[in-house]
């Protein structure tokens, strides 16, 4: 759809100069408002969204996880549109299935917008369940992080880290190889099942990168976890804040934003340190999309505008997530400095492409039961 793109320079200042830009070429084919007021949404859209009276989201965690709750509260406070969130701990597959099941339903069970793993973008388009939309700040989203036609767009990413309960573990592990040390016996756990959970599979992949593997060769990661399990260091439990605090899984492999969120939640109660490994830095990206059957299509669009505005992106930054417009905002100087200062150093993080994700996740999901698990491999 980007036939002739003019480079637009806009100052997304919070309430300063108003610059009216009219984007021509190709605008007829893309469903987006024509007039843009720097940083604030088209008033016609706001009115239409308010008239719809609500927004239904799905699988948006209500605690920790990029401070999503603050984002939702901010949206409601700004536009007076209440948000109802289905299954905050839902999986990407459930989100897609929810759209499909609710095709004919305009009730509160039908999600308007979804936030899923990158790999779900293409299949969702193929299933015909997404509606394209390009937010006002579309151009400052990196090309590699969005679908050219506007069907989906990256929202944030985080890096895998070691969330460590320092009341139990005195030496915080600095890198993947450290996890194999005998002092961590019975202490290391993943945050999900490596055949089901994006976080867990990413953990195996990251271990691969740190152990001589690459984007296309994930076997070293599987071998790493086999070693970890054989050494007795791996605890086969789904680790969460409760198990970290209890000391059952004092080292949890999880996204930086989860670890830091737990740290804040446990301030004054349990001492938690989040260490980004020196090698094998793995970034995982999630994407946003609007349902083709959304009961509140305008509220959905307004929600996207809010997320991708400076205000929204900064809330994510405050929740320790790297917002997708980070580079553009850094250049424009619109990043929230306090939030920016609290972010851990994640330079050099590897962000896989769609193809790499598909190949690697299949390989890990297939390889885990036979390499690390108890199943004897097929011949």
């Amino acid at each position: 759809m980007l036939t002739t793109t003019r480079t637009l320079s806009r100052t997304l200042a919070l309430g300063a100069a108003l610059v009216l830009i009219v984007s021509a070429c190709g605008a007829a084919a893309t469903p987006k408002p024509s007039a843009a007021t720097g940083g604030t949404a088209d008033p016609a859209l706001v009115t239409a969204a308010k008239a719809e009276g609500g927004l239904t989201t799905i699988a948006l965690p209500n605690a920790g996880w990029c401070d999503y709750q603050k984002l939702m509260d901010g949206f409601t406070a700004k536009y007076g549109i209440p948000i109802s969130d289905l299954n905050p701990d839902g999986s990407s597959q459930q989100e897609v299935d929810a759209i499909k099941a609710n095709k004919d339903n305009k009730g509160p069970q039908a999600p308007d917008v979804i936030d899923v793993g990158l790999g779900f973008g293409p299949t969702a388009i193929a299933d015909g369940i997404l509606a394209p939309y390009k937010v006002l700040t579309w151009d400052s989203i990196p090309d590699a992080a969005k679908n050219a036609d506007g069907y989906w767009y990256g929202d944030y990413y985080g890096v895998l880290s070691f969330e460590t309960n320092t009341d139990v573990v005195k030496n915080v592990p600095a890198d993947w190889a450290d996890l194999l040390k005998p002092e961590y016996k019975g202490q290391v756990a993943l945050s999900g099942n490596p055949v089901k959970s994006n976080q867990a599979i990413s953990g195996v992949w990251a271990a691969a990168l740190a152990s001589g593997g690459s984007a296309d060769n994930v076997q070293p990661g599987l071998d790493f976890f086999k070693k970890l399990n054989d050494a007795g260091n791996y605890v086969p439990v789904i680790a969460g804040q409760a198990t970290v605090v209890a000391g059952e899984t004092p080292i949890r492999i999880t996204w930086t934003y989860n670890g830091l969120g737990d740290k804040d939640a446990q301030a004054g109660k349990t001492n938690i340190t989040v260490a980004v490994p020196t090698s094998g830095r793995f970034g995982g990206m999630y994407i946003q999309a609007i349902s083709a059957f959304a009961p509140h299509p305008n509220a959905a669009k307004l929600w996207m505008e809010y997320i991708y505005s400076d205000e929204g992106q900064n809330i994510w930054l405050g929740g320790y997530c790297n917002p997708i417009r980070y580079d553009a905002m850094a250049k424009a100087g619109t990043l929230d400095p306090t939030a920016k200062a609290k972010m851990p150093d994640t330079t050099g993080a590897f962000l896989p492409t769609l193809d790499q994700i598909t190949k690697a996740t299949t390989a890990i999901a297939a390889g885990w039961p036979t390499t690390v698990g108890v199943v004897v491999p097929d011949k």
Partner: protein
Amino acid sequence: MSRTADPFSARAAQRARPGRSRNLLPLLGLVPFFVFTSMFLLIPAAKLIIGSFQDSAGQFTLANYEDMTSKIVVNAYATSIEISIVTAIGAAIFGFLLAYAVISGGLPKPVRAAVMTFSGVASNFAGIPLALAFIFTLGRVGLLTVFLRGIGIDPYKAGFNLYSKIGLEIVYFYFQLPLMVLIIAPAIDGLKREWREAAENLGASSFQFWRHVALPVLMPSLLGAIMLLFGNSFGAQATAYQLTGGLINLVTLLVGDQLSGDVLHSPGKGMALAVGMIVVMAVALAGYALLQRRAERWRR
């Protein structure tokens, strides 16, 4: 306690025999059940079966069943069936003992009400809260583990591991046992009233009473309870998910990987696995029906 050689049933049998129309009329009594289950159970189940034969574009395919013979899938079914049998029979035995203890064991009456109601709550205490409860108690740094270590016994050094098949079975007992207690209670209740005294009056020993009276009478109910326990365990998922971390292979987990995952894109495969579960249950039910017929004969 049904008796065949009584005049009532003979007359009823006579009435029921003539004409096909009379044989079909009784079906009317089951109409509410069939209507309700059709609307709210059979339709979703049908969607499940149909979905297992569809690919992502909705076209008919058998591809979802291709993996059914792979080692991973076979191992998953085997493990699930094994754990279900162990927890079903184990819970049947201990649940029966516990139920009998509070009903006929001479314990004070309030104990029975307390155990029955507690069983009600515990029967559905599963998933994350149950997993966490056992982690807090029997995990590597659990309350009981630490206590035992303090008095010189380290269960983990001795080979125990909560995160193993045996550990999972121990956790499963938490909802299997109460289920058994609740289900078998009415049968034990019906048992104690006249049989025991009659047997004692006739001079039978406890062993004889159990072998010739109690067990035959209870067998159909016991079989039914075991079948229920098997199904309950076979279909359990949430607790196992928390406690296995990818090292124990269960069918319900495989189904969840496909249907509720973040990374795989084959819900059809998940549905195929669930259809496989239905087949397993059907086979188990057939076996149970055979045993049930023999048990009914033994009763008479």
